[in-house]
């Protein structure tokens, strides 16, 4: 139809969250009748853009033009009324309603009585036009994920969609379902809908997209027709070149003896067949994209959500760990990525947090806490990790992110771990503190602790790790040598190339 004109024009959009600039001066245009792919690493700003377009969040600066007119999208209903719809990896259907009811759930012009006959007829027509075979009277709860997505697409069409955003729609679909979804997307494109397609799977991007936009660190890097980009140029743009000057000079730590071995660790349907060895003084990086299930592997090793099969062998003892207490006994520590919710008791003092995971060491007669010894330990860690605070009785919640991170490190170092799992050890802390944390991790390794470092910050993984295990969608894609790995080789594995 009227292909070529911009339906949606995003101009100079910026959005900031506390410390991080999620989007900076980003401009993208979506044309009617095109499939526009949006790619980028974790944290590149893709989700933020989607949230702004669907009215979940508001931009700090910049404009969104819809068919040339500036619009203000302040909530999801408004987005819908402008003809902007989004479908996600996990569709949001009402399980107790049937297919047709789900399709017409957001219609407001239905009058006082529901005209059931018309609803079912219209639903059938829409699905037929899309080439989808579904019984409009079957309840949504019994549908497959792919069928639920189809219902969501049908819903968008019933609302006269002009812009359809598909956020990682294929992540949990089989290849047959993916090709069905693609044919629906192409049909919509041919009818003049602008489709914004977000995926971590580059092969899919190349299969379906007309144009590709790359985001990196909140900036738009490029928009090009698919014919003008190659796989290599895309990956290079996603990871950036200038990072290499940031740090490098990777000093290989001396590889000590093997202290642990994970064999065929599996937890269905989350991850399967994870295999690696851990050596004294080694830093093993865990790389992968969001949803690659690295944290789940860490939690299984620490026993919070135990694996269902496979073995964890540590210092010759083989067992499947069922609880954090068992893990601690074996010398495993796990420092969470979510300080606020899972890591620290915010209203408690620095001292109480530092001794929380090893409180048994401080219990004297009748289980009474020997507070002088406790304070001594806290004082030692304050010196050693340079925790900046006026007093150790200070509430942890009132410290800066970097200092909170140091308190978490202290808490787990005080359990004297042999294996230390770090989950996003530098998330949400500023650049200076980040360098300090990196230094700290290297020193811990030098002291002989085996470190398993989960990080979505690729330069961080590269600069720290002796070896890098790359995961993708719950599977282990390979282990790279830290010295020879680079951003491209890790990303290629993480994206399944």
């Amino acid at each position: 139809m009227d292909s070529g004109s911009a339906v949606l024009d995003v101009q100079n959009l910026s959005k900031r969250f506390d410390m991080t600039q999620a989007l900076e001066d980003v401009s993208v245009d979506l044309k009617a009748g095109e499939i526009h792919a949006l790619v980028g690493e974790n944290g590149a700003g893709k989700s933020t853009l989607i949230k702004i377009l669907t009215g979940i969040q508001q931009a700090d600066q910049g404009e969104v033009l819809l068919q040339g007119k500036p619009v203000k999208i302040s909530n999801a209903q408004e987005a819908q009324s402008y003809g902007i719809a989004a479908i996600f990896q996990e569709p949001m259907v009402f399980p107790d309603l049937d297919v047709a009811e789900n399709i017409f759930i957001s219609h407001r012009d239905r009058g006082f009585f529901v005209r059931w006959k018309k609803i079912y007829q219209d639903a059938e027509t829409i699905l037929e036009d899309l080439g989808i075979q579904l019984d409009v009277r079957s309840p949504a709860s019994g549908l497959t994920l792919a069928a639920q997505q189809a219902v969501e697409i049908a819903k968008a069409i019933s609302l006269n969609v002009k812009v359809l955003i598909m956020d990682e729609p294929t992540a949990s679909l089989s290849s047959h379902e993916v090709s069905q979804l693609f044919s629906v997307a192409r049909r919509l494109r041919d009818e003049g809908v602008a489709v914004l397609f977000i995926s971590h799977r580059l092969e899919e991007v190349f299969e379906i997209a007309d144009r590709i936009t790359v985001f990196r660190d909140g900036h738009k890097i490029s928009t090009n027709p698919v014919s003008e980009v190659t796989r290599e140029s895309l990956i290079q743009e996603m990871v950036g070149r200038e990072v290499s000057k940031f740090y490098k000079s990777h000093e290989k730590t001396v590889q000590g003896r093997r202290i642990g071995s994970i064999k065929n660790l599996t937890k269905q349907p989350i991850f399967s067949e994870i295999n690696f060895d851990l050596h004294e003084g080694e830093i093993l990086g865990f790389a992968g994209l969001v949803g690659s299930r690295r944290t789940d592997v860490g939690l299984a090793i620490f026993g919070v959500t135990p694996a269902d099969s496979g073995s964890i062998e540590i210092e010759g003892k083989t067992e499947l760990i069922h609880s954090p207490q068992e893990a601690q006994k074996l010398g495993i520590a796990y420092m969470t990525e979510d300080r606020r919710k899972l890591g620290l008791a915010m209203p408690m003092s620095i001292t109480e947090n530092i001794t929380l995971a090893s409180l048994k060491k401080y219990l004297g007669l009748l289980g009474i806490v020997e507070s002088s010894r406790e304070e001594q330990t806290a004082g030692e860690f304050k010196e050693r990790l340079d925790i900046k605070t006026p007093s150790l009785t200070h509430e942890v919640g009132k410290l800066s992110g970097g200092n909170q991170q140091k308190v978490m490190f202290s808490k787990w170092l005080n359990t004297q771990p042999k294996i230390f799992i770090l989950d996003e050890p530098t998330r949400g802390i500023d650049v200076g503190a980040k360098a300090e944390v990196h230094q700290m991790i290297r020193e811990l390794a030098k002291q002989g602790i085996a470190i398993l470092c989960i990080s979505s910050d690729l330069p961080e993984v590269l600069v720290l790790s002796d070896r890098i295990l790359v995961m993708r969608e719950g599977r282990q894609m390979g282990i790279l040598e830290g010295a020879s790995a680079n951003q491209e080789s890790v990303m290629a594995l993480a994206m399944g190339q």
Partner: protein
Amino acid sequence: MGWEGFLLVVLLLIICVNSFNSLAFLTVENQVNLFVLSVEKIIIALIMTFIILNAEIDLSVASMMGLAACALGWMVESGTSTSTAIGLCLIIGLVGGAFNAYWITIVKLPSLVVTLAMLIGFRGLGRVLIEDRSIRVFPPWFENLGQQPILGPLPLSILIFLVLLVIAVVILQYTGFGRYVYVIGISQEVATYSGVRVARVKTILFMVSGLISALAGILFSARLGSVRGDMGLGFELDIITMVLLGGVSIFGGAGSIYGVILSILIVLYLRNGMSLSNVTGHIQTGVIGVILILSAMIPNIKSWLESIFDKKYAP
């Protein structure tokens, strides 16, 4: 100064007003008597403090009191020796608490729902045992337990309260277990991720709650000299009032046992003062009700005051 300081001021005010109003207020006799009249509630308030700090609630305490009392009467009536019956009643308390703990920690139902069900369940069980009768079968030594002074002017029940109070203060403020109670109340996830045995702590608390409630039921039977199916009906509300007024957050993790001690004194002295001024029981209950609402609003009032303060003094 905080909430405890505020409670202390209120308490001193009530003491002043009461002693001006009635010369009888400060006599040893009146003081002992006002404690004896509520000793069962204040004993349970101690363990309730732990449970609410843990971000849980036990609504079944008063019904467990009733069940233990009924079981005691029923057993003694059917020929069991009183001391054996007391032992068995304490075991009933432990088992009842363990039953609560099972549904809360293993099935993971909210304690509000589980203990509400047991509020009905334990009460019903007690009524099944002795129906609508009032049983008065206890030997004299048992009836004396409730009121006879054994140390100075203090009867056994007050002594038990004082001992439990000391134990509660020590455990909560000074032991590792007390620390765990607070951490779990602040965040169950943080506790789990730190290797704290959350389920074990909760199980212990609910079992002790059952045990203490059964003990309170036995003391109540001794004081009254008889048992009935409706003993302790509605006590749970007075007990929870005391704990919340003491500044313990209904969301767990915040508050102290000292605040609860002050609020116990406030509630008892307020009731006693009103009695001495011939205020009827119904109005007394009304006043306590208003206090409960106020105490539930404490966190809101606190943060409201803080926000005003912040606005005024922000740089």
